[in-house]
């Protein structure tokens, strides 16, 4: 794996909705195998950036080059081809609720590959094992918890062996333990499948566990970039506010937590 190869190259990306300017000037380069965490307050355009990368939203101007191809300039067929190389994990999991877990996982393979039924079943079982939910294979999405839905969402994405994974707030709405589980799952997937990842979150537990590098989005542009430890020591008050929030949250969740001391220690870690 060539870790110096740039797989995502965003230059001067701008996007507004009506008079509301969301992205003013986004510039970002991501090398192969890197895991970038995008931090920012709600409504600052973190998810919009991800959706521009995967072609769900067309930017007003600027370029979004993924594996050398400028996404906004691609035809629908070209975009579909690129999307096979990009995995997108939605905040809610976005499982198809009329299909069972098995059918959810089979669906992209049936539509996009020539694999036979046996190979498809084998892949389904393999990715379910990877996310630790082999027993849920015949369940419907309505029977799954929030954390399980997210794991199945991850499984449905990695089953296509993408080169790039985009994670849209993967831990939002989850308790600290499940947040930690999902974050470690991201790291495991990163190591096993050697993917390049962008994780959008405002959850610092997740950021700490998964990030090689963190970029901070403020006022429609990236203002800071660095490792978790570097940003923790940042002079910028806005950046520090994230780290202060997590300390408060951790203290508050620990004081309200009624579990064992061992579990408290695990959360504190």
């Amino acid at each position: 794996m060539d870790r110096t190869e740039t797989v995502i190259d965003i230059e001067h990306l701008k996007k507004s909705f009506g008079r509301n300017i969301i992205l003013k000037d986004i510039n970002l380069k991501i090398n192969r195998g890197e895991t970038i965490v995008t931090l920012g307050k709600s409504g600052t355009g973190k998810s919009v950036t991800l959706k521009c990368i995967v072609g769900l939203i067309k930017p007003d101007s600027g370029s979004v080059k993924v594996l050398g191809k400028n996404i906004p300039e691609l035809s629908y067929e070209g975009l579909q081809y690129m999307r096979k190389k990009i995995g997108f994990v939605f905040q809610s999991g976005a499982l198809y609720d009329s299909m069972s877990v098995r059918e959810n996982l089979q669906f992209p393979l049936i539509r996009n590959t020539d694999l036979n039924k046996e190979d498809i079943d084998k892949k389904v079982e393999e990715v379910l094992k990877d996310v630790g939910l082999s027993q849920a294979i015949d369940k419907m999405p309505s029977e799954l918890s929030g954390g399980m839905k997210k794991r199945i969402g991850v499984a449905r994405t990695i089953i296509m062996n993408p080169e790039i994974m985009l994670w849209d707030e993967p831990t939002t709405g989850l308790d600290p333990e499940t947040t930690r589980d999902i974050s470690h799952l991201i790291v495991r997937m990163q190591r096993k499948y050697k993917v390049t990842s962008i994780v959008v979150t405002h959850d610092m537990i997740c950021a700490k566990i998964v990030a090689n590098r963190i970029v901070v989005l403020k006022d429609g542009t990236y203002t800071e970039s660095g490792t978790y430890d570097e940003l923790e020591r940042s002079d910028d008050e806005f950046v520090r506010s994230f780290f202060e929030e997590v300390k408060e949250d951790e203290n508050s969740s620990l004081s309200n937590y009624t579990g064992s001391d061992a579990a408290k220690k695990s959360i504190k870690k």
Partner: protein
Amino acid sequence: MLKNFLPGSVRDIFLETWGIFDFSMRFFREVFKPPYNINEVIKQFFQIGNKSLGLVGITGFIIGFVLALQAIPTLQPFGATSLIPSMVGLGIVLEIGPVITGLICAGKIGSSIGAELGSMKVTEQIDAMEVSACNPFNFLVISRVISTTLMIPLLIIYADVIALLGGYLALNVVSDVSIGLYFSQVFDALSIGDIIGPTIKTFFFGFTIGIVGCYKGYNADKGTESVGVAANSSVVISSLMVIIWDMIAVQITNIIL
């Protein structure tokens, strides 16, 4: 340009009409492109057809029964009860059967498609299909529109038959007519053109109900309220379109026949 010259509500109607037209054109561009979702079409046949049999059957029966029952006191004083089968047959096959069943289907099937796709849009399931290169239009829209286009005409024929049976039962309240004679009088009054014309328009009803339901659901805004809006506007627009298609079909049939 429209923005400058037209008031908001008129502009919205133009934009909506254009949106539905454009969506329909996309359907025709993609309908013959692979992959072909045979299983999904069969599933939708079941959802649309089988699950509507009860409602359409009861409605059809009541329409036929009431139509005959209303005609009896009017025609009986003139000794013209023998004309009731012809009247019921013509009324049901030409107009009442297709239109009422079309409206019932617009309500039941149109709202169900609008709500289902609207809900999928709101919960990002359509986006999830899009980003996994699965072309949600091909999978969701084409299968549903094919199913409504083929299944609603069958439902209308089924409703017509039940309505004619309802008419027969009502007629038996006042006179002792055999079912064979009743149906023979019904079909004597109907020419081939009387059957083909209304049957053709039912395909347009089916297509319209499917395409409008899919359009409203597929283009629903974010937020749970949008699901209700998508379902509601699917019913309103497709019901209106059923009436408009009916009017056009009657004019064309009159010119041709």
